[in-house]
């Protein structure tokens, strides 16, 4: 029920609170809270144990429901149970929760991207640009900066890989560079030896789960003397990292990013949760949001639209 | 009076890199016999005991226990065979209680659970037997070194072993505890135990031992099975390979002006303010029983502990004694009592251990090390102090205890200290080396150096000091000029129960 002072309280739990993406989601959720007059409680929860603790904390604060991006989709059952015990409504964002049978839990409404589809979009963007530059496919390599322990990371990069292979590039030209950390340095360190190993390949497409990883790959290529016109990096996120690359005077190998909308994920979800609590109108069980292609040419406009 | 042979070494040999520690040593000890082991520092006495303890394995030869050939592979193994060793260095757990330390490895237990009552009772029993007024529940780390040594002895007694070996047990004990130990060893002998006794103190050996085995440079030199026909000089000659006329060889000197004045200094470990003045070139002996406060007083002077009141004046000027560095800058030096804990840097080379103080003298501003000079100096010091080491680059931890002590003294000679605070500096040092150290001390005093010399060894204090300060229970109980210092007076001043003067 509502708290002592009658205000509705809604939790917003995210798995990696340090990440820019989640910071943005929180910011938009905060805007929703101001607009609708509810109180938002932000909690970061990096693993299953902390997710359960976060739910208990929300209950202690008399919240009525929460939106969550869980550190793992298979926490679904536990989250559902814990929410039920504490009488909290729950909605997922970004990553969809699944049950013990491996199927999505329909009782938990979800708003998110399709990681595979976004990845495919990145791959298609890259291959289209390669065609435009008239690269010799036989001398083009693809760097998949891999972080496969994260499911959406794997889906995104495999989506890109799939799209590129479907476009005719030989699978033997796709090389995995496993990264230890998802930051630029991690991408850099992973990419460097792989690029080194293939001096014969003149052109490179770089994919990764986020802008930072791809940027690391691009920087490594530059370090090996590959110039902007022989590298196509397509990131995912449309983050500040991508913005900074586009803002540089000279184009770099970082060609594009797929802009995801933290606004829809943050603002729309918390509003939906608010409506559910006060009006009892259950949100639709699945909403996919799409990504927008962001390049040097359009990034200012897209970001302005997003911030509006 | 003696029984069957309980313990025999048969051609035992042991070498370390660059050193033959033991070379085919053979001798045997009977039940009810106290066998003293004597020899200069590094002669191999401790190594002999460590082989018995299962810490080292001999390279050749064997040990027989009660007629049975044994090579011990671990301390447990040796203990199971009825052997107890009191090691030269203390081995105690500071944060555990006295009772727990005493019974470590042999806790009275029932199904794995400790029987606390039984533990306390046994600890209290042994402490009573040792004549020590120590609370079994006290934290061990709160005891003075001397009391810790008594706990170490108690540990071995509790094992109720057939063969008991003492490695310099009295080096940090004072007269009263030494008497207790003598009594206990007498009881053990009467009980038919075989006892090995290592000591550098002649009086003790003559008072306690039935027989003596002498080692020199790892070789077995002689056995003297009848003590009554042995003289100190003979024994010294056997150990050192030369004769030493009078180990103290006191040399009277004219004394200079007042050098150091200690004015009503107070601090931890002291029960009353201490006031003293010491003249240039003076050797001031400090005598007292275990825990009398000598070490604490020296540390206060040195700035290693903060005084809570009082002041120190040097040549009339006030001294800032707030840290050892300041004290060193003013010319002080401390040879600490706890060699292992406070003296040596174990894994560093002997040369490094000697050079460390000189390098850090506050007036030497050179950031880089002058290696050739340091090496030369270390070589000279090693020669001067006769430190027995394979090379100046050897890690000091591998030296015998006495040689480590010599290296620490060499450290301060190298740093050219003007006031030496020496806390039991001859602890564990052999007779020959002691007479050398005394000679150095006289030489230093003649050169105008001032020396405070704390010792629990009464003949030593009486032998070398110009004046003796006696401490009792953290306060000065008397000051005696050399001429008035008799053993009886010293003891009367030192003993807590004796009436004050």
């Amino acid at each position, binding site marked *: 029920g509502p708290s002592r002072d009658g205000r509705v309280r809604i939790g917003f739990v995210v798995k990696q*609170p*340090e990440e820019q993406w989640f*910071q943005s989601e929180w910011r938009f959720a905060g805007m929703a809270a101001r607009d609708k007059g509810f109180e938002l*409680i*932000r*909690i*970061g929860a990096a*693993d*299953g*144990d902390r*997710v*359960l*603790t976060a739910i*208990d*904390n929300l*209950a*202690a*604060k*008399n919240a009525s429901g929460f939106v969550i991006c869980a*550190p*793992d*989709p*298979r*926490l*679904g*059952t*536990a989250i559902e*149970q814990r929410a039920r*015990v504490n009488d909290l409504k729950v909605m997922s964002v970004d990553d969809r929760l*699944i049950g*013990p*049978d491996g199927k999505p839990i329909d009782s938990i409404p979800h708003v998110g991207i399709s990681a595979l589809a976004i990845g495919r979009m990145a791959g298609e963007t890259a291959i289209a640009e390669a065609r435009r530059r008239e690269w010799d496919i036989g001398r083009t390599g693809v760097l998949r900066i891999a972080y496969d322990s994260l499911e959406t990371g794997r889906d995104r990069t495999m989506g890109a890989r799939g799209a590129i292979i479907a476009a005719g590039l030989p699978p033997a030209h796709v090389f995995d560079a496993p990264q230890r950390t998802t930051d630029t340095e991690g991408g850099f360190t992973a990419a460097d030896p792989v690029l080194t190993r293939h001096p014969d390949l003149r052109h490179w497409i770089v994919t990764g789960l986020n802008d930072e990883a791809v940027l690391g790959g691009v920087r490594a290529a530059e370090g090996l003397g590959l110039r902007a016109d022989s590298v196509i990096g397509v990131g995912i996120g449309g983050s500040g990292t991508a913005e900074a690359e586009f803002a540089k005077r000279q184009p770099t190998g970082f060609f594009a990013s797929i802009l995801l909308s933290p606004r829809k994920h943050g603002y729309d979800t918390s509003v939906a949760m608010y409506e559910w609590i006060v009006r009892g109108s259950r949100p639709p069980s699945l909403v996919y949001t799409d990504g927008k292609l962001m390049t040097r040419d359009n990034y200012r406009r897209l970001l302005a639209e997003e911030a509006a | 009076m003696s029984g069957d042979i309980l313990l025999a070494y048969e051609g035992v040999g042991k070498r370390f890199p660059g050193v033959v520690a033991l070379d085919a040593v053979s001798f045997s000890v009977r039940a009810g016999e106290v066998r003293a082991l004597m020899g200069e520092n590094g002669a191999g006495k401790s190594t002999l005991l460590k082989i018995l303890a299962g810490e080292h394995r001999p390279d050749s030869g064997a040990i027989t226990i009660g007629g049975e050939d044994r090579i011990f592979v671990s*301390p*447990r193994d040796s*203990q199971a065979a009825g052997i107890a*060793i009191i*090691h030269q260095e203390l*081995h*105690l*757990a*500071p*944060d*555990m209680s006295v009772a*727990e330390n005493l019974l*470590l*490895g*042999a*806790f009275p*237990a029932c199904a*794995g*659970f*400790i029987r606390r009552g039984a533990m306390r009772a046994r600890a209290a029993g042994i402490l009573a037997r040792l004549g020590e007024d120590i609370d079994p529940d006290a*934290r061990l*780390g*709160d005891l003075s070194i001397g009391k810790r040594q008594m706990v170490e002895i108690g540990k071995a007694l509790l094992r109720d072993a057939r063969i008991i070996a003492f490695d310099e047990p009295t080096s940090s004990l004072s007269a009263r505890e030494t008497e207790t130990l003598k009594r206990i060893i007498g009881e053990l002998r009467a009980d038919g135990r075989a006892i090995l006794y290592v000591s550098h103190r002649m009086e003790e050996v003559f008072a306690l031992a039935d027989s003596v085995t002498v080692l020199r440079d790892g070789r077995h030199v002689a056995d003297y099975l009848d003590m009554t026909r042995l003289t100190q000089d003979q024994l010294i000659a056997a150990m050192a390979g030369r004769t030493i006329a009078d180990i103290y060889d006191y040399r009277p000197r004219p004394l200079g002006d007042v050098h150091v004045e200690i004015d009503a200094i107070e601090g931890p*470990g002291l029960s009353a303010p201490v006031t003293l003045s010491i003249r240039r070139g003076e050797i001031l002996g400090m005598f007292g029983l275990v825990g009398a406060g000598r070490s604490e007083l020296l540390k206060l002077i040195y700035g290693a*502990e903060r005084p809570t009141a009082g002041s120190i004046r040097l040549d009339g000027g006030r001294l800032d004694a707030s840290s050892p560095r300041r004290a060193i800058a003013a010319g002080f030096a401390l040879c*600490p009592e706890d060699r292992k*804990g*406070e003296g040596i840097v174990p894994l560093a080379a002997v040369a490094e251990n000697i050079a460390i103080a000189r390098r850090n003298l506050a007036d030497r501003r050179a950031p880089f090390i002058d290696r050739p000079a340091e090496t030369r100096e270390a070589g000279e010091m090693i020669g001067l102090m006769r430190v027995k080491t394979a090379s100046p680059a050897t890690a000091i931890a591998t030296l015998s205890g006495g040689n480590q002590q010599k290296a620490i003294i060499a450290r301060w000679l190298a740093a050219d200290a003007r006031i030496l605070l020496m806390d039991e500096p001859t602890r564990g040092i052999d007779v020959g080396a002691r007479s050398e150290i005394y000679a150095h001390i006289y030489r230093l005093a003649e050169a105008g150096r001032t020396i405070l010399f704390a010792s629990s060894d009464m003949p030593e204090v009486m032998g070398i000091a110009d004046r003796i300060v006696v401490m009792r229970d953290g306060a000065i109980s008397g000051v005696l000029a050399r001429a008035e210092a008799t053993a009886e007076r010293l003891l009367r001043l030192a003993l807590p129960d004796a009436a004050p003067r």
Partner: protein
Amino acid sequence: MAQSSPPLLRRLGAAGPLLIFVVLFALLSVFVPDFFGVRNMRGLVLSVTLVGTIATTMMLVLALREVDLSVGSITALSGVVCAVVIASTGSVAGGVLAGLAAGGAVGLVNGLVIARLKVNSLIVTLAMMEIVRGLAFLASGGEAVSIPAERFYELGSGTLLGINYPIWIMIACFMLFGVLLNRTVFGRNILAIGGNPEAARLAGVPVDSVRITVFCLQGLIAGLAGIVLAARITSGQPNTSLGLELAVISACVLGGVSLAGGVATITGVVIGVFIMGAAQNALNLLDVPTFYQYVVRGGILLAAVIFDRLRQAGGLRLARRAASPSPSQSSEKGSATA
């Protein structure tokens, strides 16, 4: 200085962590809305079960003058193994046993390498942290393994006398290892080895076997905690509990366990665990922004150890100055093993 003052001051000294805890708890109750309430208290206790359970054996490891960085990975591995076995055989008991066995086996390897080969425990368990994490990923195929046995969830969410099982398990560990440390020969041997390994060895304490046993226990308990966690989160997750080892060690140190070995009490550890839990709980309740949480969390740890140190030093100055040859406790003993 009266003769009676040292014991009194010493007792005050021993009560240091308790003092911090009481003050902290009082402050939080007053200043943090919703903190002091049945609902939040239960959540708080539940939130410390993972750290609390593992801290009991970490206490033993630290008392031994060793350290174990692999507990987070063990927790992940045993949860995954348990989940995989239940998922493939359907047997809950089999899964639990397999999880415990996995934890115990890692502990045994740690113990053997550390005790027999005399390798520094920090490095051994650092290496094992990586290896075991990798095994957890391999066992799970890189993703969380769902556990299709509702019965098993009961272990995580069921209650007895109104108290959740994970809390009971933590309490049981507190009691078990408290008694073990204080009342048994084994426990006192641990403290003796931590206090002075050489002395313990020379006194005939079976040093190696104590070391091996302690690391095995640590593995088993971390495994148990992993299984309970899997039951709570209804799946085995290979990337869970990253950084758990540091939280557990912090809790122990806050509770007065000395990293120099030889000093530990179970009450201290209990208090340390709750100081950490209460602080984190308050941060969440107060909605402190993430980035400030880092600073506050680190700041609390730092402040607590500094406070504890100053209090000790004050006690030292008054009552037992220079009890040890060195005035600096950190250098009182030779730090960890070589």
